């Protein structure tokens, strides 16, 4: 296209964003990194990392975070797949399903967390159904403030990220390919296993990563509905705000950001390699 002023003008256009992010994001991030590597007197040290990772409680926090995220991701996929298939069909109310699917990731996480807390409380409707309705249990079972409860709440809050990716991939698939498989004599299960799932693999991977990352960074839900189960995001807040130990909190934040970046990079490498393999065959 025709340039109106060349490189200098381009730089001028980019300047506000770059200056802003440098001052408001990268400077604080760098500051956090420096904090994590220094003690209260400003001397360089690795003690802050040792303080977090050198203890069993630190590893327990990490393990809890990863475990909750992995379980919630797996459970979410079980919800995402049928939902994605459903969204392909035309029926009255498909718009409502779309709307409902988007609700958890559009509303403030805190409101969702509050609602989940009330619904799954010992005196909430779910326990009322389990105990008084279905007579499955003699007394209310604890769901809030348990790990199982957190997994359930994570699913509620984050499954849409996966459902969107998988629904998009399924929608982009040529329906004639499935029709071809059926005409070729493949019964429905075989069409699913031999044709649809292999074709959905990139989307399943991408969707899983999206859900996992959201769970990994979850803050509002475990903050108010996790009780003593504090994943790393909540732990960082507690260490900084309650114990006022900003140096350890900074070290934890750096660990958390590094893990997340490593996950994203691993995914990118995996996805790129798979794409290259497909391209090499093509």
């Amino acid at each position: 296209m025709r340039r109106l002023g060349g490189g200098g003008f381009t730089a001028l256009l980019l300047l506000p964003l770059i200056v802003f992010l440098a001052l408001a994001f990268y400077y604080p991030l760098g500051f956090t990194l420096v904090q994590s590597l220094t003690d209260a007197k400003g001397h360089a040290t690795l003690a802050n990392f040792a303080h977090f990772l050198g203890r069993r409680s630190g590893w327990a926090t990490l393990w809890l975070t990863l475990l909750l995220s992995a379980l919630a991701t797996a459970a979410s996929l079980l919800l995402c797949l049928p939902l994605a298939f459903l969204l392909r069909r035309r029926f009255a109310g498909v718009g409502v399903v779309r709307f409902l699917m988007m609700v958890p990731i559009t509303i403030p996480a805190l409101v969702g967390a509050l609602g989940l807390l009330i619904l799954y409380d010992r005196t909430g409707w779910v326990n009322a159904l389990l105990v008084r309705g279905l007579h499955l249990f003699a007394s209310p079972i604890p769901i809030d403030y348990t790990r199982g409860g957190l997994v359930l709440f994570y699913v509620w809050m984050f499954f849409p990220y996966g459902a969107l990716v998988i629904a998009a991939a399924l929608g982009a698939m040529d329906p004639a390919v499935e029709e071809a498989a059926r005409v070729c004599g493949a019964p429905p299960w075989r069409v699913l296993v031999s044709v649809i799932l292999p074709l959905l693999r990139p989307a399943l991977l991408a969707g899983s990563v999206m859900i996992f990352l959201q769970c990994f960074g979850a803050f509002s839900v475990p903050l108010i509905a996790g009780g003593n189960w504090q994943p790393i995001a909540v732990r960082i807040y507690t260490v900084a705000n309650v114990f006022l130990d900003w140096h350890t909190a900074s070290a934890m934040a750096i660990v958390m950001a590094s893990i997340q970046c490593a996950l994203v990079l691993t995914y990118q490498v995996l996805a790129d390699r798979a794409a290259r393999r497909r391209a090499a065959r093509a």
Partner: protein
Amino acid sequence: MTTTGHLEIEGIAKSWGKLAALSDITLDIAAGRFVSLLGPSGCGKTTLLRLVAGSLAPDSGRLVLDGREITRLPTHRRNMGMVFQSFALFPHLSVAENVAFPLGVRGVGRAERERRAAEALAMVHLAAYAGASPRQLSGGQQQRVGLARAIVYRPTVLLLDEPLSNLDTALREEMRLEIGEVTHRLGITAIYVTHDQREALALSDEIAVMRAGRIVQVGTPTDIHRRPANAFVAGFLGYANALPLTVAGGVGRLADGTVVALPPEAPEGTAVAFMHASDVVLRAAGSDAVGLACEVTELAFMGERMEFALRHVSGLRLKAAAPIGASVFARGDRVTAELPPERLVVVPP
């Protein structure tokens, strides 16, 4: 000769909500015949094919294959083969794996599978591409893989859904010949959906012309071409000229009373006479020729021939075509357009 593949379509109807996609379709397809469903888009031909394949269920009517009702039989148990407009190859499988797929789901052993896939690929001249990915192939090659995949398990009926529409013009003819060759060699019953009358005329034993969810004419290509049942069929077969007439006592008259000589079997009453542009003979006005007095309004050089747009004194517009050098007319020239009666096809409107 083939003994299986006799398909009876009996009174099939299908509607989408209030919209009738197919109404009362009845068609008997004898074993080994190549039948085309010809019609404009939206006429229901693809819907009918998908009903036969089992991808859709009819609202009423029956499908009977070799004496056995298959109306409610799920697709994967109908033992049909299908070639798709979009090729619909499995992108995650190689060419050979694509062709072997139907054998795999039928539990055919590995060695046998490979042998038969290779055989089918050889039949469509793609033996060299067995290990390639479908994406490496050109459109024409992909469609030949599609054809191999559809016939490798000797289906009872082969369904072809506009298999040439996604191909370049140059490839179409080659692929059309390939389809004709393969189906004749196998003697398989084939149903071919198309909106291109040339494909249908070239390939078929029989053509069913469809319009708005109904079959309007069934016949051999020669029948359909020579004796279109009505104005729609004639128009669809690519006649450039349509003259509305009133026929009384074997004499046709245009709206302004101009007399048009007709072939002997012309129907009485209101009718439409069709004629190809190349059958119209142009003569300079004032010569002793008998025909319609016209003015040349536009002319176009088309390579091996010239095309003329004409306007008759009554306002009627005609098209004529003549080989280069046969006649030289310019825009604005007055001409007489001769319409040889034996070339006119007169049908009810």
